[in-house]
């Protein structure tokens, strides 16, 4: 594998050896490319994703503290941008979805989630870092776990456990339907919601990065490792595709951070609502 591939996060690991029997075959990028332990091995290895995650937290904390230390009533340029980001979460997600005045309690959660996911996602297309943290399912799972605990805790604290479980079934259903709906809602609340929350983010980042890898590695293979001149010419298209996909990824990354936070706000709002 070449330099380009390594820089893009494609480990030249020997997990799946290139089938040398056929001379040179194209090894399509796969799951293995996302496993990049830097320190240690196995279940407790510190992976590249972990390092990126820690980096993102340090970066975010530094930026946030730097920005909030110099807040003025009349904003400057930097503060204006910071306020725009903060207001997107505060007003667009918190106040709009959860509603005043409850949303203030959950504002730190929403702000943390949004910016942590956003920065980690955008890191995926920033050169050198270039690894989508959220394509390792552990991270979205951790965040979804937090959300899962929060929205159940909020609902139980507000309604009590019994009424909360009872409120899962919408009122006015025929009696024979109640158990089914209850089961369905139970699965939705305790399984579908957290799992899809984690897997949506994971899936989008994983698939997006896989696509990028495919375009870049495919182009690289066609350019450097193939004998057919046609393929070498066509590699230009593959690289162009990777650029287009990078732009598309940026959109998806921001959108996924937004959707994750929006769904968190929605679930919390549902837990706070009196009705089903």
């Amino acid at each position, binding site marked *: 594998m070449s330099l380009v591939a390594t820089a893009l996060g494609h480990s030249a690991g020997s997990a799946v050896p290139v089938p040398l029997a056929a001379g040179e075959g194209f090894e399509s990028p796969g799951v293995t490319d996302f496993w990049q*332990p830097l320190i240690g091995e*196995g279940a407790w290895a510190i992976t590249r994703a972990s390092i990126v995650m820690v980096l993102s937290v340090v970066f975010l904390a530094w930026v946030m503290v730097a920005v909030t230390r110099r807040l003025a009533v009349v904003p400057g340029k930097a503060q204006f941008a910071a306020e725009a980001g903060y207001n997107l979460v505060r007003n667009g997600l918190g106040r709009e979805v959860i509603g005043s005045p409850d949303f203030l309690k959950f504002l730190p959660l929403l*702000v943390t989630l949004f910016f942590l996911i956003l920065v980690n996602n955008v890191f995926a297309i920033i050169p050198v870092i270039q690894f989508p943290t959220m394509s390792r399912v552990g991270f*979205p799972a951790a965040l979804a776990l937090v959300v899962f605990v929060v929205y159940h805790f909020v609902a139980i604290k507000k309604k009590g456990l019994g009424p909360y479980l009872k409120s899962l079934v919408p009122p006015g259903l025929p009696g024979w339907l109640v158990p089914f709906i209850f089961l369905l809602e139970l699965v939705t609340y305790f399984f579908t919601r957290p799992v899809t929350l984690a897997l949506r983010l994971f899936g989008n980042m*994983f698939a997006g990065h896989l696509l990028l890898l495919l375009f870049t590695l495919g182009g690289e293979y066609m350019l450097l490792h193939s004998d057919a001149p046609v393929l070498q010419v066509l590699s230009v298209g593959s690289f162009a595709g990777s650029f287009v996909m990078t732009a598309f990824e940026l959109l998806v990354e921001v959108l996924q951070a937004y959707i994750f936070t929006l769904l968190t706000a929605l679930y919390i709002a549902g837990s706070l609502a009196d009705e089903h």
Partner: protein
Amino acid sequence: MLATTLLAAAEEGGEDGGFWADAYPIIPHPAELIVGLLAFAVLYWVVAKKVVPAFEKLYQERSEAIEGGIARAEQAQAEAQQAREQYSSQLAEARGEAARIRAEAQSERKAIVEAARTEAAEAAARETERGRAQLAAEVTQARSELSRQVGELAVELASRIVGESLAGSDATTRTVDRFLADLEERAPSGSAGGATSLGKA
């Protein structure tokens, strides 16, 4: 249970990258899960302690500043209103004062004119009186002059008629005086009477 199997699998993992290199990507890596939770906790702490309070305080300050601005503007408006009222009341007062002064001046003027007129009338009356008195004196003088001349003329006429000059003699003078006294007695008042008596004489 799943975790233990996973861990066991991880332990068994060989040098080939092991279980995790080829694991289902939907199985959370334990270290990453923990790093994720810790990262979230740290960032949450920063956001909850620093970012959100700072921004909320800022928004509160800003809304207070705006509300304060509105209050200040309202106060200024009230002050302006008050000043305007004061000004207009003062203006009305001044206008009243001016009207009063004008009325006073008018009445004063009237009084002055009146006084001047009375004075003039009095002066005119006095002048008339004096004129009349002078006239009366002149009439008296003229009358006495006339009576003297008439006497003289009568005497001269009589002497001419009589033919002898009585002029200068005491007797004649006495006669004339007596005559004139008689005249006076016969016509005690009015020039007409005098004239009549004169004509008769």
